[in-house]
């Protein structure tokens, strides 16, 4: 009986699916967490997130290209990833929040989404002006870390390090939200904006700060993925819908939800790739639709508080 069961389960396949799923899930989480943070606080479904991703990837690849051209030390690539993320995040965070969203708070949520969509299109065009249409390559950090063989499958350490990065990001956000005074102020603003304003919280500053945090996370996701892809025009387009899907599946605005949702989607997608490749591209959206139909508030959304 046990033999029969073991025959059914191909352990190596399961291991491969789990590892691939975990890597892809980490990628999804890193991409989507910034969008979830911004939605949680500002209730803005931010399409420009795709632009932050693209600009992060482009800036990292561009700087990395210059760095390695001058044969500077290899580890510099990792510094560049974080540097690019912070530069892009702070610049676009301030630009979009102060220049655009500030004028739209309190308006119909469709209008806000459409405005960010408009800004996304404009930024796509500007990106093409700055970086052109030729691909950029930034593979050195991936090469530097090398490869490892686990149970007959070759993985590169760089992709595996994305899992670590995802863990670090989620732990830091958890620590920030529940253990620091700023995090608690943020939670107060999320819970009730008006009351916290009345209590003396500078909501404008909290909004700007959150937005810069979300933007930086978006740019970091692009910069961190850049070594594993060729950086091309249009890379931000797919990210927008992927992030939408993860945000919806996990529960709009819930960070633990985004984490579990990403891993779930990652594993299901990996299983689809190995067992049923035709479904690879739509399995994420199928899960998204199913979640919306049966649990529209998301799998792990905190219960909504009824305000009187």
């Amino acid at each position: 009986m046990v033999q029969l069961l073991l025959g059914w389960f191909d352990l190596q396949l399961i291991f491969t699916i789990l590892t691939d799923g975990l890597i892809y899930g980490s990628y999804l989480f890193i991409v989507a967490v910034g969008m979830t943070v911004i939605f949680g606080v500002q209730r803005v479904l931010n399409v420009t997130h795709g632009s932050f991703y693209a600009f992060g990837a482009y800036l990292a690849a561009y700087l990395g290209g210059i760095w390695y051209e001058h044969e500077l030390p290899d580890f510099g690539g990792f510094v560049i990833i974080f540097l690019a993320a912070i530069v892009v995040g702070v610049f676009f965070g301030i630009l979009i929040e102060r220049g655009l969203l500030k004028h739209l708070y309190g308006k119909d949520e469709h209008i806000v989404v459409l405005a960010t969509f408009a800004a996304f299109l404009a930024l796509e065009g500007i990106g093409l002006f700055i970086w052109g249409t030729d691909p950029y390559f930034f593979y050195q950090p991936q090469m530097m870390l090398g490869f490892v063989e686990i149970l007959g499958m070759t993985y590169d350490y760089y992709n595996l390090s994305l899992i670590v990065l995802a863990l670090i990001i989620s732990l830091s956000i958890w620590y920030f939200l529940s253990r620091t005074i700023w995090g608690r102020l943020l939670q107060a603003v999320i819970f009730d904006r008006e009351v916290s304003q009345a209590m003396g919280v500078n909501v404008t500053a909290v909004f700007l700060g959150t937005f810069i945090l979300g933007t930086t996370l978006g740019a970091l996701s692009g910069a961190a993925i850049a070594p594993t892809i060729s950086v091309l025009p249009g890379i931000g387009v797919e990210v927008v819908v992927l992030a939408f899907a993860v945000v919806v599946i996990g529960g709009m605005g819930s960070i633990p939800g985004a984490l579990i949702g990403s891993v779930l989607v990652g594993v299901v997608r990996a299983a689809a790739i190995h067992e049923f490749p035709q479904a690879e591209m739509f399995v994420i959206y199928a899960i998204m639709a199913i979640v919306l139909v049966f649990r529209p508030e998301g799998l792990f959304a905190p219960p909504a508080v009824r305000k009187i």
Partner: protein
Amino acid sequence: MSADKTIIGVTIAVVLLACANFFIADWIRQIGLLSMAIGSVALGLLVLWRTGLISFGHALFYGFSAYGVALLNYLGVRDAFVLVIVSAAASGLLAWGLGFLVRRYRAIFFALLTMAFSMILYGVLAKTERFGSTDGLNVHPPTFLGYAPVDQAAQITLFLFGLLVIYGLILGVQIYLRSVLGQMTTAVRENEIRVEYLGYSVEHVIHIKYVISGLLAGFGGAIMALAVGQVDPESMAYWTASGEFVFVAILAGTGNVAAPFIGAVAFEVIRHFAWEHGANLWQLIMGGTLLAIIMFVPDGIWSVLQRLVGKKDGVK
């Protein structure tokens, strides 16, 4: 209500366009055809938007119907009337089925659920070899009730055919919006509970809207497939296509059933000239225009036209 100004105006415009069709340059006629297709989808969005619902996934019906035309081609069907009506009806049927799920949702959930459905279609189309994967399928030049024109005559006939279709669509939507069911539109947007107390089912009203909207998007997709002679998942079913439709709807405004077509013409003309100066310019212009419209002209081109003519808004 004996003389409906909109219907009179649209009739005159359609007759004029039908005459002009024989004299205009080919590229202008092509822009006209594309505008008819995009305008039909935007008209579908208008029907929904008047209740306060925005779909981010209308490429679902547009792409479904366009692929319907291509696949009917493979079965040997060539007649434009059959192709367009069957494909659009299939889209309407799809909308009817999905409507049972979608009608329960409002606001951003409605938008996201419709988007998810359209991305599922994209994933299926892009990964199925029979549907040409990411390359898509070719569409043969259609025949019109046995008449099989070639070259320029084919385009001229298709233009007339397109005009006939959109004339029918505009009349149909105008009559619907004037009916009791159509009048519920604003009522549902303003206060759903009150509508329920009046004895109407809000979900039923929205379901019918969704079917009409899907049907209109289906007509748009079918016209597009015939006008371009090709269907592919990237431009027919991806979320960016849905975004463009919403863009046209916002550009046009919801003031009148003719507005989506005026918006679509503006959209296609800008696109035509922007592409001549490079693809990067196009996205920049589109983004900039959309931002400007949202910020400064929230009621779209139609409201500007109204102000130019000197008419004030009727019921707000």
